[in-house]
C-alpha cells in the first residue's frame, strides 16, 4: 500500500456568514504522517471533512495525486476516515464491520475472510472477531475502525481527533500503535487534533491552524523551536514574551529595552531597525533560576530579578511562575530534576527572590510590531 500526496489549493468556506476557511494552500507529501493542529473552531475538522468529501468548498480544489477530487462524493474517493466516535455499525459484528467495504464490492467469501483476518491480526483483534461493538472497549473500537478503514486500501487515511475519547494512558498507547501502523502500511496519514503533545510526538510535519488560516507548517522541531508568530509560540508548549524598543544593534545581537525586563540582549538573524518595537519569545525550560547571584554569567547571558509567585511540582520537573517588580505578567521558568542533588543548589520556595538567567541565543524575535 502506498500513500498519495494531497494538494489543497485555494480552499475557502463560509458558514452562515462566518469565514471558516480562508484561502488554504498546502501540500501533504505521499506517505507522510501529517498533523493539523489547532484550537477548537480553527477549521481543522472542516478541512478534514472536505478532503473526505462530506463538505464542499466554496472555492478551491483538492487533489489526490494527479486527480482533482473536489467534486467527487465521499464514496468515490480513495480516502478513508477514522471518526472521533469510531462510527462502528452497531448491528454488525467486528468481522462484518471490517468486511463492510469488501461486501459492497461483492468480493468472494473466501477473499473477504482472508483479508478481514489479515487486518484484524494487524490490529490484534482476531480473538474478538464475532463480538458486537457494544461489547468492546474504547481502544478496541478504535482498532476495529482502523482495520475497517485500511482494508479498502485507501491512499490517504484521515483521522479526526481519534484519541480524544480515550483516557490518558490509553491515548499514549494508541498513539504509538497508530505510529506503528503508519510505518507498516505506508499510507498518508492526515491527523487532526487539538492536543499539541500528540501532534509533536508522532508527526512528520505539522500544520498549525487558527481561525481558518494555516499559520505555520513544519516539522515538530521547527514548530517548537522556531514558531513563526506569537500564536504558534504560545499554542505549542509554553512561552514567555518580551516586548520593547530596540535601542542598540550589533552584528549578531541587538538590545531591546523593556519597561518590565530592563535591557535584554536577543539573537537576530535578519535586520532590525533601531527604534522599532519588537516582540521576543523565550521557552521557559531555557531559563535557569537560582536564589543567589549566578556566578558563571557569560557575555551572551541575560539576567533579571524576580519573585516566585507559584511553584507546580510534577515529579520530573518544577514549573516556576515568577513575577517581576512593577508588572503583573507571569514569567515562566521550568526546571527538570535531572540530578537528584545538584551542587550549589538551594531549594527555592514561594515568595523567594530569585535570579533568572538565559542565553540570548535561546530566545528570538517573533514579531516586529
Amino acid at each position, binding site marked *: 500500500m502506498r500513500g498519495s500526496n494531497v494538494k489543497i489549493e485555494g480552499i475557502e468556506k463560509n458558514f452562515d456568514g462566518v469565514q471558516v476557511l480562508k484561502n488554504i494552500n498546502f501540500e501533504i507529501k505521499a506517505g507522510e504522517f501529517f498533523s493539523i493542529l489547532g484550537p477548537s473552531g480553527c477549521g481543522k475538522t472542516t478541512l478534514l471533512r472536505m478532503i*473526505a*468529501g*462530506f463538505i464542499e468548498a466554496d472555492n478551491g480544489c483538492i487533489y489526490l495525486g494527479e486527480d482533482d477530487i473536489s467534486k467527487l*462524493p*465521499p*464514496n468515490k474517493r480513495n*480516502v*478513508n*476516515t477514522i*471518526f*472521533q*466516535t469510531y*462510527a*462502528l*455499525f*452497531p*448491528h*454488525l459484528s467486528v468481522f462484518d464491520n471490517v468486511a*463492510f*467495504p469488501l*461486501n*459492497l*464490492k461483492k468480493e468472494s467469501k473466501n477473499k473477504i475472510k482472508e483479508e478481514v483476518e489479515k487486518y484484524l491480526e494487524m490490529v490484534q483483534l482476531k480473538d474478538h472477531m464475532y463480538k458486537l461493538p457494544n461489547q468492546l472497549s474504547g481502544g478496541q473500537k478504535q482498532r476495529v475502525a482502523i482495520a*475497517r*478503514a485500511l482494508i*479498502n486500501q485507501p491512499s490517504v487515511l484521515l483521522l479526526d481527533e481519534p484519541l480524544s475519547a480515550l483516557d490518558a494512558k490509553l491515548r499514549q498507547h494508541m498513539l504509538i500503535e497508530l505510529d506503528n501502523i503508519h510505518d507498516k502500511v505506508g499510507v498518508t496519514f492526515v491527523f487532526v487534533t487539538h492536543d499539541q503533545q500528540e501532534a509533536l510526538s508522532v508527526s512528520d510535519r505539522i500544520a498549525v491552524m487558527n481561525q481558518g488560516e494555516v499559520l505555520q507548517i513544519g516539522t515538530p522541531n521547527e514548530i517548537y523551536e522556531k514558531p513563526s508568530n506569537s500564536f504558534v509560540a504560545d499554542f505549542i508548549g509554553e512561552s514567555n514574551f518580551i516586548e520593547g524598543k530596540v535601542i542598540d544593534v550589533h552584528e549578531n545581537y541587538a538590545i531591546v529595552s523593556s519597561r518590565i525586563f530592563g535591557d535584554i540582549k536577543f539573537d537576530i538573524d535578519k535586520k532590525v531597525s533601531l527604534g522599532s518595537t519588537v516582540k521576543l519569545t523565550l521557552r521557559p525550560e531555557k531559563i535557569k533560576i537560582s536564589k543567589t547571584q549566578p556566578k558563571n554569567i557569560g557575555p551572551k547571558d541575560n539576567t533579571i530579578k524576580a519573585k516566585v509567585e507559584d511553584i507546580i511540582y510534577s515529579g520530573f520537573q518544577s514549573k516556576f511562575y515568577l513575577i517581576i517588580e512593577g508588572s503583573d505578567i507571569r514569567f515562566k521558568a521550568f526546571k527538570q530534576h535531572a540530578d537528584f542533588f545538584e551542587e550549589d543548589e538551594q531549594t527555592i520556595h514561594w515568595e523567594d527572590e530569585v535570579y533568572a538567567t538565559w542565553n540570548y541565543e535561546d530566545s528570538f524575535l517573533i514579531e516586529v510590531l
Partner: protein
Amino acid sequence: MKKNKFSLSIFLLTMIFFYLPLVFLIVSSFNQGRSQVWTGFSTIWYQELFYNSTRLWQAFRYSIIIAISSAFLSTSIGTLGAIAIHWYNFKHKKYLQIISYLPLVLPDIIMGVSLLILFTSTKFSLGLTTIFLAHTTFNIPFVLLIILSRLHEFDYSIVEASYDLGADEFQTLKKVIIPSLMPGIISGFLMAVTLSLDDFVITFFVSGPGSSTLPIHIYSMIKFGVGPVINALSVILIAGTVALAVSTKKIQKYMIN
C-alpha cells in the same frame, strides 16, 4: 405527606374508574341471562361468539388485513419521510412538516368527512381499498413522529462512515440506516397496526356496504343491542390487548439486553 395522600386517593379513584367498567363487562359476559342481573355462570355467549358469528369473523379478518397492509405502507413512507426531514433540506420541507403535523391535531371526523367527499366526488367506490387508503393516511404522521424521535438519538457518523467506505445512498439505506433504525421502525409499525385496528370514525365514513372492519361491526352490534355476545367479544379483545401489551414489553426488554 398530605399531598401524597391526596394524589394517591385521586390515583386510586382513577384506577377504580378505569377498571370497574371492564370488570363488569367481564363478569356479565359469563352471566347466563341477558340483563345485568346475575342468573348464573355460563359460557353461552362465548359459544355464540365462536360458532354463530361469521360476519363478525369476516370483519375481524378484514381488520387484520387492512391493519397489517396499511401499517407496512405507512411505515415505509413515514420512515423515508422522517429521514428526509431530519437529515435533509429541500424546498418543500416546511410545507411537509406542517402537513404531517396537522392530521395529529385535527379531530378524526374531519379526515373521515374529507376522504368521503374525495372518494365520492372522484367516483371511487367505497370499500376495503378506501379504508386501506384512509388508514395509511392517518398512520403516516404517527410513524413519522416515532421515527423522528429515534433519529434524534441516531449517530449520524455511521452514515458518513458508510459513504466513506464506498457505499452509495441505496446501499447505505439498506445496510446501515434501516438496520440501525429497526427498533423504531418496529415501534412505528406496531403503533400503526394498533391505530388501524382501533379506528372507528374515519373507517365509518369511508367504508361501503359489505366492507366492515371489526370496530364498524362492533358499532352496529352496540347500536342494535345485540346483547351479551358483545361482552364476550370485549373480554376476548381485552385479553388479547393485555397479552399483546405484556409481550411487547417482554420483547422490548429482550431487545435492550
